[in-house]
């Protein structure tokens, strides 16, 4: 059995000493790891954002083209409506259906002071000069 060594000797042993910052040295890995992760995430994020932007730009381009096409169709339809409403097309069709231009009808002019309605007469052609 040997007796236990006094603690003082341990303290005096120069080969054994407390190294300052040992625990800190192990901790320095974390910021680098975090920075790398942030960097990777940022890179991926940037790539994703750029891809999204590109995709949006293509989508916008497609929508622009679609709008232009629809506008062209709209203009064509507008033109078609205008052609359909052309009096030169409507009037002959109306006449075929037996309709007459309002001016060619007789008017009933009601005398409010009494008496019955009178039909306006049509004047004959007068003298010429």
């Amino acid at each position, binding site marked *: 059995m040997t007796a236990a060594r006094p603690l003082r000797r341990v303290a005096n042993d120069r080969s054994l000493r407390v190294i300052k910052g040992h625990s800190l040295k192990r901790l320095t890995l974390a910021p680098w790891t975090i920075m790398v992760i942030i960097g990777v995430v940022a890179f991926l994020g940037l790539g994703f954002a750029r891809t999204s932007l590109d995709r949006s730009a293509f989508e916008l381009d497609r929508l622009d083209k679609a709008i232009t096409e629809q506008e062209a169709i709209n*203009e064509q339809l507008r033109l078609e409506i205008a052609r359909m409403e052309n009096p030169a097309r409507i009037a002959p069709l109306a006449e075929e259906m037996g309709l007459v231009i309002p001016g060619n009808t007789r008017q009933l002019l009601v005398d409010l002071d009494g008496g019955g309605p009178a039909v306006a007469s049509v004047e004959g*052609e007068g003298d010429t*000069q």
Partner: protein
Amino acid sequence: MAATKAARKPNPAKLRVALIGLFLVAAWLGMAYRLVQVQVVQAADLADQGLSQRLVTRDLAPQRGKIFDRNGELLAMTIEAQSVWANPGQIEDPLWVAQQVGGLLDVDPDLLYERLISDRDFVYLKRQVEPVLAEQITELEVRGLYTHPEATRVYPAGQVASHVSGFVDIDGNGQEGLEYVYDEDLRGIPGKAVFERDLEGRIIPQGISDIAPAVPGTDLNTTIDLPLQYQAQQACLSALVRTDAESCWVVVLEVETGGVLAMAGAPVFDPETRRTVDEECDPTEDPVCSSFSNFVVRGVYEPGSTEKLITVAAAVEEGEVEASTLIPEVADVLELRKDACRSADDDLYGCYRDFEEHETSDMTVAEIFTRSSNVGTILVAEKLGQDRLVSYIEKFGLGSPTGIDYSVEAPGFLNFEAGCETCWASAAIGYSVAATPLQMAAAYAAIGNDGVWTAPHIVASTTDVDGNEDVTGLETRRVVSESTATLMQSLLANVVDEGTGRAADVEGYRVGGKTGTANKLGEDGRYTEETRASFVGMAPMDDPKVVVAVLIDSPSFKFRTGGAAAAPVFAEVMEQALHRLGVTPDATDG
């Protein structure tokens, strides 16, 4: 010694390594040199070259403005069409292509063949065709045939409003009518787009992009009433058939504003093809039938008796006569120069006759006007004197452009040569004066507007791309007093009630107007038997809203007078105008 020699002998392996090392160093130096050259020295130039290959600059064509009638109906608009073109060098069988495409495009195959065998790289086969047609061309899958989009101007109302809208050329430049006058406003401002594109021509999303959008042209909101315009044109076309005339022109003015409600004529043309619609018309033989010049604005004629309104109004305004003033001994012939009426070409030398022979009698100014007596009117004008007569003719707008917004307006002219002793008398009855139908309509509108002359106009307002509306201002001036105008209105009503213009009567309305019959000058400067028959009038007479002027050029002898040829057309158009404006009838006895 041998050991020394061996030591001095170069080691081949080391030598090879050294050489390779040297080569590598040289290569690296070369690459470094090239790197510096490319990345530093030539960097800017090469970057520019690359950019120029990717960068594309495109002109953005603006949408040409639309033209509307007063009810918002389209008179002119621009749509996208397709133009068919070819690269003749790529066409393998030009004859076959010319036949196939010629049939589809309705173009002479011989003409197409000539184009397809030319040594050019780009030839148009037909411009601005409908997209459906272009698709059929594309479906032929012929190498060397291409289409590209191009704007084209269309006129939905067709020939109906052609004399108002005018037309553009194939490149969209205004050539006639409103298209010409408002060309700058209608065409808008071109834009420019600069962008980067990839190999397939797609826009690089994050690349350089600078777009200055095109600004569309201004829209024109006209005073034209399309249904009335159609009725006026139909009335003219019917009149041509009925009277066998060369041409017929009608203008309808809104009295208060001077707005042109209709301005039509016959013969007519198609503004899209820029050709007459009359299939029997041969332009080489008859330039009139193929003309698209608007006579209402550009054609001058001697107005004849319709000018008497100005003469009598001036005399009344100056206090020389009243309606009841008795002019003594009004004969049916007046000789202002001795023996003038014995000459064959008497009209040029001071002999004036009434249209109908009558006994010499005293006549009131009202009777002279109603019966359209040339002699009586000259006697009235004699009281006025030449200077004052000319002054009033000019006040009423004859001899100078009205200022209407239409291309190349004719000013007309007053022929008062120095030493001419009878010009004043001729002017008093509508000779020695040349006016346009529009000028005559505006003069009558001044009487209808209680003595205030208003400049005619076609565009009521313009609307820009932001919806801002710019309303056309009215240009007015008083030419006679309200009392004189009222008196002249009653005299005009008499002409239709019991005078020479009875054929101008409109059922349900009191109408006033004046007939005009003027012989045409021949090429030798002498008057011919051919006439220009006209009628200018207004309605309703209790508060005139509309003035209609009708001119029929060279009707057959039976219809040679204004009362026979023009008055019925006036009645037809006036009736439609009153209905279109919703004017309440003011007469109970027809």
